């Protein structure tokens, strides 16, 4: 009995279809392997999560450019600014200000800048005293400040420092060795105005990096003996 040619054709088409599917699968696999090979040639691995991304960035970037916010939860760091509050400092007045490092992470204090405005009441006017103004209008005469790290009860000066001597935003006052301020710690900054008439609005802004410290609540100080 002769075989039905249509049946044979149908079977043949099925086989072709199967071959095509296998071919597609093989092509996709080849493409994936090529991509993997390319990455490996660059010293990289496919990004499947933050771990591999960290390894890739470390491999492809200059050490100074490796970002701080990629990595283990207790190793990442991110930039942060802590600023004092808006407060008027009237003549012959000392005002307590400062900032508290929040519980989430500690603070590595690296630099600080000041911003001082002169305030007049009536119709309110706050005018920034630009320290770059060399005509003399860039100064805040009589305004001084003190810093106290309440975590260690350390004062950072023997007497108030003239605010004009620090923190021009163009040249922030950098701490050559950073300071670690633990979570929940408070940095007290007091402003004293000994000018006869000027009312000042001073801000002191600390710049640094936040970093998580495991069991920070168990650390009562940063010094051991």
């Amino acid at each position: 009995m002769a075989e039905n040619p249509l049946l044979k054709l149908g079977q043949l088409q099925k086989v072709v279809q199967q071959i095509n599917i296998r071919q597609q699968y093989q092509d996709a696999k080849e493409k994936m392997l090529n991509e993997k090979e390319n990455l490996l040639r660059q010293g990289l691995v496919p990004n499947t999560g933050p771990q591999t991304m960290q390894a890739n960035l470390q491999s492809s970037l200059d050490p100074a450019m490796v970002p701080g916010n990629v990595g283990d939860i207790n190793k990442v760091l991110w930039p942060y600014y802590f600023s004092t509050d808006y407060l008027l400092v009237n003549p012959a007045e000392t005002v307590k200000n400062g900032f508290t490092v929040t519980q989430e992470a500690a603070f590595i204090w690296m630099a600080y800048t000041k911003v001082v405005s002169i305030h007049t009441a009536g119709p309110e006017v706050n005018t920034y005293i630009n320290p770059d103004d060399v005509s003399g209008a860039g100064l805040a005469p009589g305004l001084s400040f003190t810093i106290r790290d309440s975590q260690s009860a350390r004062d950072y000066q023997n007497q108030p420092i003239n605010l004009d001597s620090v923190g021009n935003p163009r040249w922030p006052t950098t701490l050559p060795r950073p300071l670690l301020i633990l979570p929940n710690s408070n940095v007290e900054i007091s402003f004293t105005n000994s000018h006869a008439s000027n009312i000042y609005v001073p801000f002191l802004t600390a710049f640094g990096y936040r970093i998580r410290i495991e069991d920070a609540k168990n650390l009562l100080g940063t010094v051991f003996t």
Partner: protein
Amino acid sequence: MAINNGLDQQVGGDIRGLKKRLRHILPSYLIPSNVGGINEVSWPFYEQVDFDFGANPTVTPATRQTQSFQVSQEAALLLMGISRSYDAVTTAGNAGPWLIDFRDRQSARQFNDKPVPIQVFGTKGNISPLPTPMLIMPNAFFEVTMSTYATSQVLVGSSHHQFSFFGYRIRVEDADKVMSTIFG
């Protein structure tokens, strides 16, 4: 093979050879960042946000504007510095009672505990650097909010301000598979 200071002869169009050669010849700080594998190269990039409260605005604690930029899908941004510019030196411009705060929407992280005066940041060429860069993933939003500490003040001049976020773009392969930059 040429014996020129221990270097292989560079074959035309061979970028790998060029990279190797540059690494051999140049001090590390002079090696260009745009030579290498497609996922290794990085290039400088500025993201900008603009604020404008109009001319001679009256500001109160309710005065605020939020602007943002979105890192495009092509590559991530390694944020390395922030600077600002202004149109006027009067109270609506550089001398104003302006505050700023930054938020990385990807991690919901703020850069500050409370808004900081804009004058904290370097102007124009005097960029405020971030000594350790921060990675902002492709498609992520970065929000900037400008407000004021004045209780009620009529400012003088143009209140147009621009903030520039400088950094390097770097491709992150399969960035869509990396949902967070942190593990632990």
